């Protein structure tokens, strides 16, 4: 029988990685994800794995680059300022088309910002962050169970497409505790070809593997651009994931992800109890963005309310998908229950806004 335990989102992420067979972790302490680093430092040596505390997030991501280049399951985790430091390495990993998982627990920014929750890194995570043309597969869980599951899904998708995957949480769902069912999820086979990976015990006569992030300089640029473009199009076609709730007869749809998605679902339930026709569409993959689903939504509902704990980032993508066919409204940081970094967007506040709009 599957084991059910109480875990924080952060520890669930670590457990998800261990259940996925990841035995290599590289990290650096930063609030609110230092417990991930601590957990791996205790667990991996006991499991025959390798834990390295790096001197910076810049080096964490490069250690991950090296490990991923060997074709093994490896991971790092960080929070917003640390994620900024990783951009260079992520760009190189994407260029070299290596599978790995990055766990990102958002806190408030910019600068050192706050150590409390926020969703201010949407653009950085989804649109790139590092230089050049690349995409990360971005999974946005909204519960501790999903964090556990999506780290495993992240490894699978990363290997399926040879592309880094990122699991995006925040201080709310990273630090909260819920029940988690611990089990290894079988997503199916991943590509068997490992010829691209750095190897040992290789035959000196065989062709050597050369992992390149300098894709343009080594003379394969157009080939690389065409291949990755096709890959990105395939991911956009096949890997969109979202949750839809109470949408059948909804007149207003709330679009929110992660912790705001939880608040939105809470608000939706309160609204339904009052007879209001409100539904929720929660993007699970932020890239690929559920653009077709939101396009379709725009033809069914009159109004869309985007809730995210920032000054308005995902709302731009929603507006882009809606193309003026429905009203798009936004609520963000100024709807927090406290006017400082301890503030959070509560279901009740969302309900008030919904009532104003209906």
């Amino acid at each position, binding site marked *: 029988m599957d084991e059910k335990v*109480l875990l924080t989102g952060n520890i669930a992420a670590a457990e998800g990685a261990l259940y996925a067979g990841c035995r290599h972790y590289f990290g650096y302490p930063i609030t609110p994800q230092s417990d991930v680093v601590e957990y791996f430092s205790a667990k991996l040596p006991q499991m025959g794995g390798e834990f390295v505390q790096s001197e910076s997030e810049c080096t964490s991501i490069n250690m991950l680059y090296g490990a991923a280049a060997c074709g093994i399951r490896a991971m790092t985790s960080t929070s917003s300022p640390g994620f900024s430091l990783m951009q260079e390495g992520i760009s190189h990993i994407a260029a070299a088309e290596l599978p790995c998982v990055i766990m990102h627990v958002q806190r408030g920014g910019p600068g050192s910002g706050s150590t409390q929750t926020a969703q201010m890194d949407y653009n950085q995570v989804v649109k790139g962050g590092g230089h050049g043309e690349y995409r990360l597969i971005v999974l946005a869980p909204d519960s501790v169970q999903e964090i556990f599951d999506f780290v495993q899904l992240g490894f699978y998708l990363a290997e399926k497409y040879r592309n880094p995957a990122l699991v995006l949480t925040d201080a*709310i769902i990273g*630090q909260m505790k819920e029940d988690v069912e611990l089990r290894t999820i079988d997503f199916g086979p991943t590509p068997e070809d490992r010829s691209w990976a750095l190897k040992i015990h290789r035959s000196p006569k065989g062709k050597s593997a050369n992992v390149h992030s300098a894709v343009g300089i080594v003379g394969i640029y157009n080939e690389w651009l065409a291949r990755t473009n096709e890959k990105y199009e395939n991911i956009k076609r096949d890997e969109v994931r979202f949750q839809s709730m109470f949408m059948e007869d909804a007149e207003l749809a709330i679009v929110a992800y992660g912790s705001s998605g*939880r608040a939105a679902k809470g608000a939706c339930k309160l609204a339904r109890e009052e007879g209001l026709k409100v539904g929720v569409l929660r993007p699970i993959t932020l890239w690929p963005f559920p653009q077709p689903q939101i396009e379709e939504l725009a033809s069914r509902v009159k109004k869309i309310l985007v809730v995210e704990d920032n000054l308005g980032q995902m709302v731009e993508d929603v507006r882009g998908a809606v193309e003026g066919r429905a009203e798009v409204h936004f609520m963000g940081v100024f709807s927090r229950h406290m006017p400082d970094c301890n503030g959070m967007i509560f*279901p009740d506040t969302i309900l008030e806004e919904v009532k104003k709009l209906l």
Partner: protein
Amino acid sequence: MAEEEKETMELVIAGYGGQGVLTMGDLMIKAGSNVYKHVSWLPSYDTYTRGGRVVCYVILSDENILSPLVARPRTLVIMDPVAMDLYRDCLMPGGTLIIDSCMVSPEMVGREDIEVIAVPASEMAQSILTIKITNLVLLGKYLKLSGALPLELVASAMTKSKEAVLKDGFLTINQEALSAGYNYAN
């Protein structure tokens, strides 16, 4: 025998770092997960390790917990004056406010539409051994008032605490604090 669906319990606890706010919530979900189908525990705290504002949202429910955030709790535990200023208004009208009256004067409450349960928890804790167990006194009182969980279940949850390996003597004292709060009559 079909199990009857239990009432959802929502609790907000607020104080400052080091008072054991998060531990109280943690004990609730550890014990609660044996009784309720779903539990959630959400901490929010300032940057400093000790002395910053801290609040904990706890939900025990047989229904899916859609949002772990509790905006209008029916029960609120307040452990210091700053938390009182910040959180007193969120308590639902007709709700119950449990305060450590050694830290917060009942006069500070300033609301007529709620029930205030003043427990001299710090003094009670000190008389047992140390103010470090004040949180357990308040938790005991909450358990008595809410009926959310049996006292024994929460007491035994302490033995499962992985974070703090409690020596026998300390465990007894912790359980004593919990009982003292449970049996405290205003």
